[in-house]
């Protein structure tokens, strides 16, 4: 499974921090992340991409440390965007970076500290990561990553009933997508007069959105590697 973008989403969900300064705060988050070896979850998967018209699906999400992730729609088909984040935050947190304090802000009405991570390697795919951390509950509520190829992606995490295990109830990920076109001679479309891709300009980048609502988690049950093939 190469869905690094989702890997990233889930990595974010482990982030919690106690430290006062930026570096310590991030290190704390990494330490928390270490506690989760694997999990299996049922989730509602909602896709909002201009060229995809898909119904909400119930999917199974499998995660295994350090970077394995698999989303399976056991009852049907889901088209899962991949590589919208080409560098995992996990790799970033395990590599050399500089953590800078970016001040404070409000996310979901909660005061947060902004921490900016700059990779030490100048050639890294990730250019900049910005974390919005709820320092009271020690949770990452939002993260923005800027990569060389995919532009800026954003993830927002909502916590609730799964807070005791340190995992989010809901994640909203937004990213850049490109337009999709097939020749009419291939599809023989029926023109039913419905306006297509409202506001979209062909060839221009548009924003896509994925929303995952977790229904349950089974943490550290020892998942087999074969699940991720």
């Amino acid at each position, binding site marked *: 499974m190469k869905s690094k973008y989702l890997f990233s989403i889930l990595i974010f969900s482990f982030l919690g921090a106690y430290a006062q300064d930026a570096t310590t705060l991030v290190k704390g988050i990494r330490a928390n992340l270490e506690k989760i070896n694997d999990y299996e979850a049922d989730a509602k998967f909602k896709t909002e991409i201009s060229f995809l*018209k898909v119904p909400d699906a119930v999917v199974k999400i499998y995660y295994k440390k350090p970077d394995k992730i698999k989303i399976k729609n056991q009852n049907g*088909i889901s088209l899962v965007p991949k590589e919208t984040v080409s560098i995992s935050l996990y790799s970033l947190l395990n590599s050399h970076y500089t953590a800078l304090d970016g001040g404070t802000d409000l996310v979901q009405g909660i005061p947060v500290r902004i921490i900016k991570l700059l990779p030490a390697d100048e050639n890294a795919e990730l250019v900049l990561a910005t974390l919005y951390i709820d320092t009271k509950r020690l949770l990452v509520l939002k993260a923005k990553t800027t990569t060389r190829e995919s532009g800026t992606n954003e993830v927002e995490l909502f916590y609730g009933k799964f807070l005791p295990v340190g995992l989010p109830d809901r994640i909203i990920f937004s990213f850049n997508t490109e337009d999709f076109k097939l020749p009419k*001679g291939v599809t*023989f479309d029926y023109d039913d007069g*419905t306006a297509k891709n409202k506001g979209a300009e062909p060839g221009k980048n548009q924003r896509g959105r994925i929303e995952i609502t977790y229904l349950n988690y089974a943490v550290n049950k020892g998942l087999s590697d074969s699940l991720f093939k």
Partner: protein
Amino acid sequence: MWQLLQIELLKIFRKPRTYISFGAIAAMVIIIQIALKFDGQSYIEFLTGSLKDSLEIPYTNILNGYFVCFIILNLLLIHIPLLIALVAGDSIAGEANMGTLRLIASKPVSRTGLMLAKFMATIIYTALLLIWLAFISLLISILIFGTNDILIARNDALEIIQRNDVLWRYMAAFAFATLALTTVAALAFLLSVFADNSVGPIVSTISIVIVFTILSEMQIPLYDRTIKPFLFTSHMLAWKGFFYSKVDSGGSSLPGTIENIRAIGKSSLILVLYIIGFVSAAIYAFNKKDILS
């Protein structure tokens, strides 16, 4: 009327050429099924284009019976008019050629009644051909490929319909296809009145369908508003409308919905008007016709 219809059905279904269509459909469907069984992924890659770089595409799940049936319909509903024309174009001209037209037209039945019976028999043939197509393209595909959600490739979007939301759409699509192909039958039927040999009406019908289809598919602004909305071939594709779902404000498609039911209704109405027009013209011309064959 029932008596005449029975006679016309007997004539159609005792004629060897009728079964060419059933055989041809079976052959074409089986060829497509075999091709997809062995190389379905290439076709899906072709349909999804560059998206495989940005999306995780579950090829084995996509290649299921529902999807295969959709591909078959997409490919064949362009060609089936030929098979419909084969029988509808023969209905009057074939009898003229065989010399039986003068016999039946000198029987104590009205020419209008005779034409209606012939046309109804053609509709029954068309419907049976589609039931046969449904049987082998849907049931056999399900047996070979199983079922799953269906991926619909539109020219600017990919659409997924859940498997438990598919079957009724197929029923509606096949019903609509019967209407669409009845329009072709009505055209062939009309042309059949003017010929004493079935080759002419068959070839003319196919030529008209091809030219109209090209006009329907060409994206030329001049034609888009002037000609296209009135071409029956533009509306024959409306069976696909049953596979387009509505989306909610969040962009998710809604199971059990149709994107634009009014458009399908309008297309149906236009096709019905075409059928009425063609058949009325055929009846009028046949009533005026001097039978010299």
